[in-house]
């Protein structure tokens, strides 16, 4: 059992980060903290790709003319793309948070929910009143 944990420690780190990230996204009410959780979640995937590309004793994939053992470069390239996507998502998310703060004056999820529900209730009763 201990061996299983030690041998695959990189994957355990990935799984732990993945769960922490998702937990933060679900449990925190602050919109910025949710984005931080989302980042942790995405980072766990980056680590996952990088650790599956690693060859034991391998070097960086640079052509030297000699035969060398090197790590698989493809997942690195892939995850570079995913990192860019992650940055774009974070930037867009933060921009939305700024706009939300401007128009609602709060970034706490439960307060936003209350404000939205109040608007909905007002609309609904107005809608019913006119329909009758």
């Amino acid at each position: 059992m201990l061996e299983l944990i030690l041998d695959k420690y990189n994957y355990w780190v990935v799984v732990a980060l993945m769960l922490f990230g998702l937990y933060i996204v679900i449990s925190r009410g602050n919109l910025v903290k949710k984005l931080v959780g989302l980042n942790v979640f995405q980072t766990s995937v980056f680590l996952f790709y990088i650790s599956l590309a690693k060859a034991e004793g391998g070097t960086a994939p640079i052509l030297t003319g000699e035969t060398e053992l090197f790590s698989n470069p493809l997942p690195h390239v892939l995850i570079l793309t995913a990192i860019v996507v992650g940055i774009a998502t974070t930037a867009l998310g933060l921009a939305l948070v700024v706009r939300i703060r401007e128009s609602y004056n709060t970034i706490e999820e439960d307060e936003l929910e209350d404000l939205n529900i109040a608007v909905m209730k007002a609309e609904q009763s107005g809608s019913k009143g006119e329909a009758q």
Partner: protein
Amino acid sequence: MIGAEHLPVLQVVGPLIAAPVCSLLRIRNLAWLFTLAVSIGAFLCSIHLLQTVMASGPLVYELGGWAAPLGIEYRVDASNGIVLLIISGISSIVLPFAKRSFEAEVPEKLHSLLYTAYLLCLTGLLGITATADAFNVFVFLEVSSLSTYVLVAAGASTDRRALTAAYNYLILGTVGATFFVIGIGLLYMATGSLNMADIANRLADIEETRTVDVAFAFVVVGLALKLALFPLHAWLPNAYTHAPSAVTAFLAATATKAAVYLMLRFSFTVFGTGSGLLAPMAGTVGIPLALAGMFAGSIAAIYQYNLKRMLAYSSVAQIGYMVLGFGFLSVTGVMATTLHLFNHALMKGALFMALGCVFFRVRSVNIGDLAGIGRQMPWTMSAIVVGGLSLIGVPLTVGFISKWYLIQAALEQEAWWIVALIVASSLLAVIYVWRVVETAYLKEPVPGRTVTEAPLSMLIPTWVLVGANLYFGIEADFTVSVARVAAEGLVGAMQ
């Protein structure tokens, strides 16, 4: 001269290159005209592609001349040819409508940027559909999703709730896409390849492993979030309700369809031979969730006072029909799914555009504000009635065609109770469509309010789609034959 052999990639590259150019066009009419031209170009491309594919089999395009599996390839066959046609076609019909609609709902200085986001969204959706490279799918998925969040948030100038809707969509959409990319990573781990056909070949050669099964689970859950399968649909109603009308019409008709196509593609052509999980997952998870979605979506729709939200919940129910067809894992079932992809795009596109016309004049889509509007906006409301009949599945409309094949697929499996449930959930659609008809035609108009018919530039695109609803409901040979070839191709790949 660029030859026809470049068409599979051109329709993705076109909007991609056009997007930054569009952001420089600061005159909004110019930006609109440019976007429309690019979109129609993509539409003509996809018509030509589908014709070629139906006549002479799948088209393969190697990017940069690098052959698969090392290079990225685009592959167009009947199943994605039809999805390409839906996406570019709906986009070309929505854009003429979008001009007046955006003018009424979005501040002028944002227009050229909005069209830029629209083009990026189009690029992403077409890219997802055309590519045969698993990681490429993720990149295009994110291109389309990120631009979609922007498009949804653009509704903030009429209702600030668009911002929270876009934020929640961003969180759930990113979680879905990240699940998907974890699945791709596990697949790469097991096979060392990213090309879909190559992965399928290699999976057939290796023994069934847990890695592949987990990869399948991650991909399916990720895509289920993107396509708003019933318990994972939470982002959809708010995003559709608060986005600008034209954006809702475009997204409702295309975005979830591309995700459903991906689900079919990955389940059959990628995992079909390699994961023993497909059949149990479709049978014990897919079908029950699809049925639950059909009822939960329709029942929730009945209780909505906001008609955009009502149609959004009805989309959740309609996605249930698509997943149900897929759940049967038979040629007829997948045929029904493909047909409903096409048909639902026509009806939801038409309905959301008609509601856009209502919003343009009344500035509200709450049911209480629509009393007696059938007499004031006859063309718009009759579009809603025809679209509603199509949602229910009345003969002579497209809704009937897809339900007919769905019921046949259920009968093939001798699942009588599913047939009964399909009919019962269609009856629920009668209730929410009738509520609208009753309010619009049988109630007295709101006193002191004069509303005139929506402008022609909005009515004509709406009625083009309504006409398509009727045309393809009567003359279904084309859609049925494409759906049959697509379904045979997909299900055939599994055996």
